[in-house]
C-alpha cells in the first residue's frame, strides 16, 4: 500500500469515526430555554383561540373538498 493511499485510508477512517461519534451525540438545543421568551407570548401561538379557529375551519371545510392537516390542529409548540 502506498503512503498516499494509506493517508487517504486513515482520513476516511477518521471521518467515519467522527461521523459515527457525531451520530451518537444528541443534538444540542441551539435555542436555549432563556431565549424562548417570545414563544410564551400568546401572539406566537398557532392556535391562540381554539374556539374561533375551529369554527372558521368548520365553515371553510364545509365548502371545500380538501380536509385535514390544518394548522388549527397544531399548537404553538408542536401540539397535535
Amino acid at each position, binding site marked *: 500500500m502506498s503512503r498516499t493511499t494509506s493517508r487517504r485510508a486513515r482520513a476516511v477512517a477518521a471521518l467515519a469515526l467522527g461521523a459515527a461519534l457525531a451520530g451518537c451525540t444528541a443534538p444540542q438545543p441551539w435555542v436555549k430555554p432563556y431565549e424562548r421568551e417570545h414563544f410564551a407570548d400568546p401572539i406566537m401561538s398557532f392556535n391562540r383561540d381554539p374556539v374561533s379557529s375551529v369554527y372558521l375551519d368548520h365553515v371553510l371545510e364545509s*365548502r371545500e373538498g380538501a*380536509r*385535514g392537516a390544518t394548522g388549527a390542529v397544531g399548537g404553538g*409548540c408542536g*401540539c*397535535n
Partner: protein
Amino acid sequence: MQLEQGTGASRPARAVPDTVLTPFNRTLLALCVIVAPALAGVLPEDRADVMWHNYNGGDITVQGPSVLVQKRVGESFAFSAGYYEDMISSASIDVKLSASPYHETRKQQNVGVEYLHGKTTYAMGYIHSKEPDYIANTTFYSISQDMFGDLTTVTLGYRRAWDQIYRDVKQPDGEIINDPTFHERADHRGYTLSVSQILTRNLIADFNYELLTDQGYLANPYRKIRYLSPGQGQGFTLADQVYPNTRTSNAASIQLKYYLSWRAALSGQYRFFRDTWGIVAHTIEGNYTQAWRHWVFDGTLRWYRQTNADFYSDLFPYANYQNFMARDRELASFTDWTVGVGASYQFNVPGAPWISKSTANVRFDHLFIDYKDFRNALLANEYGPGNEPLYKLNANIFQIFVSIWF
C-alpha cells in the same frame, strides 16, 4: 321544491345545507378544540370560552353558541368539555333545485382528558354530534413527546368515527320524519403526524400530515345530479347521486411563524391535499398579528384552489352515464378567497379575583368562491341547460366571544 322519492311519490323534503360538514369533518374540527391545547410537556391552561357565531351567504344562515371549558386537576391531568350548536336556515341554490327550504339544529358535545407524564402527554376523548338526520360518534387518541431540549414536539394521533345517516321527508300532514326506507352507515379512520420545531429564537415551524379513510355511504342523500333530457321540462332531469363507498385522502401542511420586534407576529402556511376521488387542492394563507396596549389585532388572507372529483359533472349527457356521478359543489373545480380581520381586548373583571385574565373578541371574515364548473341551474329556462352562468358565492362570517382564564 320537491324531493323525488324512490316510490315515485313526490314529498317535500329538506336538503343538507352546504354549510354543514360531513360528520367526520365536523369531528375533525372538534378534535382541534380538544387536542390542540395538548402541548406536550405542558397541560392546557384553565380557560373558558363562550362564543356566538353567524354565517350568512348563498341564502343560508347558520348561527349558534359554542362553549369550551378546560380545567387542570392536579399536576398531571387536564379535562375539557365543549358544546357547539348550529341553527340552520337554508334556502340555498341546492335546496331550491331539488328540495325545500328548511330549518334545523345540530348539537355537538365533546369531552376529553389529557395526562402528562414527564415530557409525554397522552390525550383521548369522545365527540357526539346529532341532528335530525345524522348521528356521529367519534373517539380519538394521541400521544405527544417533547425532545431535543424541548425544541421539537412530535405528536401521533388516531381517531375512529361511526356515523348513521338518515333522510328526512315531510308527511302529508306537514310532519317531518326520517324516511323509514333509508338508513345508511359510514365509518372513518384518521391518522395524524405533527412535528413542531423551534428554528430560531423568533421562528417556529409546524408540520402536519393527515391520512383519512372513509367507508360506507358518503354521498349527500338530498342533492341531485342532473342530466340532459331535451324536450322535457327545463331540458334536464334530476337523479340521485352515486358516490364510491370508499375514500382515502392525504394532506400535508407546513406553517411558519415569526416574531417581530415590535410585538407582532407574521405567519405563512401552505397545504397540499390529494384524494382517491381525484381532487387535488392547494391552500396558501398569511396572517399578521399586532399587539398594542390591551389590544391584539389580526389580519388574514387565504387562497384555496381545487380540481374536481373524477365523477363530478355539472350536467351529465344522459342518465346512468357512468357508474359514479356527483354534482356536489364541494367536488367541483373552484378557487376561493377569504379575507379576515379580528380584534381582542383584554380587560379586568372587578369583583372576580379568581379570574386571572379575560378578553372580549370579535372577528369578521368574508368568503368568496368562484366556481369553474358549477352552474346556476335555476337559470336553465333563461340560458338553456349547460349554458347558465357559473355560480359564485359571497358569504360573511362573524364571531363574537369572551374568554376567561382562571
